[in-house]
Each structure stands twice: as C-alpha cells, then as structure tokens.
C-alpha cells in the first residue's frame, strides 16, 4: 500500500476552531504542506493576524508571532529586517485585516519589496465579528452591516487587492487562486509554493490571494459556498497571475 495523502507535519496536533466546511482549514494545510516540502518548518516564522485566523499560531508547526489588526506586514517587516536571510517570513491575513484596517501596511510592504510571503484569504466578509461588510464584499451581497445588500451608492465598490498591488514596482509576484474544487486547491498550493520559493531566492514581496468561503456568514451550506465562490466571486475576482517580475533590484 502506498500512502497517497496524509496529514502534513507542517500542522500541529491541534484541531482547528473553524466552522464546518471553512476553507481556512484547506489553506492552512496548503501552507503547512509547502513548508514541509521545502524543509522550512524550522526556519520559518509566521505572523498571525486578527480575524478568524487569529489562532493560526496554534496550528502552524513553526515559530509564530501574533500581530495587531492589520499590522501583520509591519510585524513581518520587523522580523525580516532582523532575521538571517535563510529564514522565511509569512503573514496569514484575512480581507478585513489586510484590505481594510491594514491597507497602508500591505501597500508599503509591497512597495518596499519586503522579502516576505503574504497569504491573503479573501472571503468577502468579516467572519470572526459576525459577518459584517468587508472591503471585498460584492455588490448586492447581504451582510450584517449591509442588510439590504452592498450598494455602490452607499458603500462604494469592492477592492481588487491583487490587481492594485500588482501596480507597485516593488511587488515581485502576485497571484489569485481559489479553493472551490480539488483542481483549484492544487493550483493554489502550487502558487503558495512558488511564493515561498521566490522569498527563498530573495526576489522580494509576493502575495497569494486565496478565494475562500464563509458558510456561516454567507448563510449557505459548505458545498453551496464553494459554488458561490465559482459563480459570484471569480467573475469579480478573476484568477491568475497579476505580477511576475525578475529579481528585485536587478532590473537595470
């Protein structure tokens, strides 16, 4: 018998607190598998953010620091500037954390070409606080703070973070992936691995935006939620590579 699939050692033995069907679990696993495959668990420091993934430090089997809301890229910058170059530094942030309160930190980390990996989990809502509107909430999407659905007149339009950061010269690699079926989960893992490899090659800032679900606050079953990612989110947040550039500082 050959083992085709087993639990990665990149995760601790802790069971997650996530709701049934929450794709945070899948994304955690992908990051952990990549760190294991790169033999980087002992040389990686992760930065947990604030939101549903606030307890990520319980789950990743590597050194972890927990940051204030939105500030993970700044904390990661502090770590990056101190730690030896062989260390890998990553942040794991949701859309409320990264694209709302932490917008300045992520933009400037990207602009500086900070040699870190950012895992950006976009589920178009604030999960932990009970399903309020996020900067990524789609037009018409009902949330606790947009009971009639998000309106462009009242709340403005959702932000496409990957496209925006891709305009910055400092960003080395930006890709948006999804978790809505096994094929896309495999693609997501490939992108995450690439991002860590870019960091290992000291090529600079990279971010993988992962479209994710929130069954509880979307009011859908886990299976319906994945279909919703495909039918509603991907048309607004197209998948693909938005930035891929040669080594930072070697352009000229």
């Amino acid at each position, binding site marked *: *018998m050959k083992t*085709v699939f087993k639990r990665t050692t990149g995760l601790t033995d802790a069971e997650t607190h996530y709701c049934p069907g929450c794709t945070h679990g899948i994304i955690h696993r992908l990051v952990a598998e990549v760190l294991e495959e790169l033999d980087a668990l002992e040389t990686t420091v992760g930065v947990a953010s604030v939101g549903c993934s606030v307890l990520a430090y319980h789950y990743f089997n590597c050194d972890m620091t927990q940051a204030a809301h939105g500030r993970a890229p700044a904390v990661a910058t502090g770590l990056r500037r101190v730690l030896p170059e062989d260390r890998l530094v990553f942040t794991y942030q949701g859309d409320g954390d990264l694209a709302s309160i932490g917008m300045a930190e992520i933009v400037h980390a990207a602009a500086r070409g900070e040699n870190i990996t950012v895992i950006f989990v976009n589920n178009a809502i604030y999960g932990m606080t009970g399903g309020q509107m996020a900067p990524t909430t789609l037009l018409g999407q009902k949330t606790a703070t947009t009971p009639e659905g998000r309106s462009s007149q009242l709340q403005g339009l959702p932000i496409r973070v990957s496209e925006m950061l891709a305009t910055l010269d400092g960003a080395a690699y930006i890709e948006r992936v999804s978790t809505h*079926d096994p094929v896309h*989960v495999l693609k997501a893992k490939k992108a995450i691995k690439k991002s860590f490899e870019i960091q290992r090659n000291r090529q600079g800032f990279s971010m993988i935006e992962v479209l994710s679900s929130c069954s509880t606050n979307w009011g859908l079953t886990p299976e319906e939620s994945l279909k919703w990612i495909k039918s509603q989110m991907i048309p607004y947040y197209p998948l693909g590579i938005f930035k891929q550039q040669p080594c930072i500082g070697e352009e000229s």
Partner: protein
Amino acid sequence: MKVLFNEGWCKGCGLCIAFCPQEIIHLAEHLNRKGYRPAQVVDQDKCTSCAACARMCPDTVITVYRPDRKQTAVS
C-alpha cells in the same frame, strides 16, 4: 482500506461527499465526540484513491492509500 477517516476530527461539512467521483462517502447516523455526524466510507473497494476528498477536507480528517498494482489485480 484505501481511505481512512479520523472520525473524531470530522465536522460533518460534507465537502468530501460533494467531491467524491465515486459517490461512496456518506455521513454516519451516529454522532462523534464533537457532536457531528462524521463522514465515512462503507464501500472501500470502489475507492480509486484519487484523494479528492482529502484535498477538500478542511480538517485533515482523511488519509488515502493506494494498493500496489499486483494486489489490485488479485482483489
């Protein structure tokens, strides 16, 4: 045994069921220690070891094995 479920960790979300091409995964009638109906496979023979279930499981419940070719032929 081609697919093994760590029953205690399962939250019964059903994503493994949704993506099993063989449609052999079901929620059990009993509850696990968390209070969920855990996913289970009764008909192991039909499993193709594709691991789609494991890749979609958010809770790393599933381990997948593939029998050696000879053994497959014998069975």
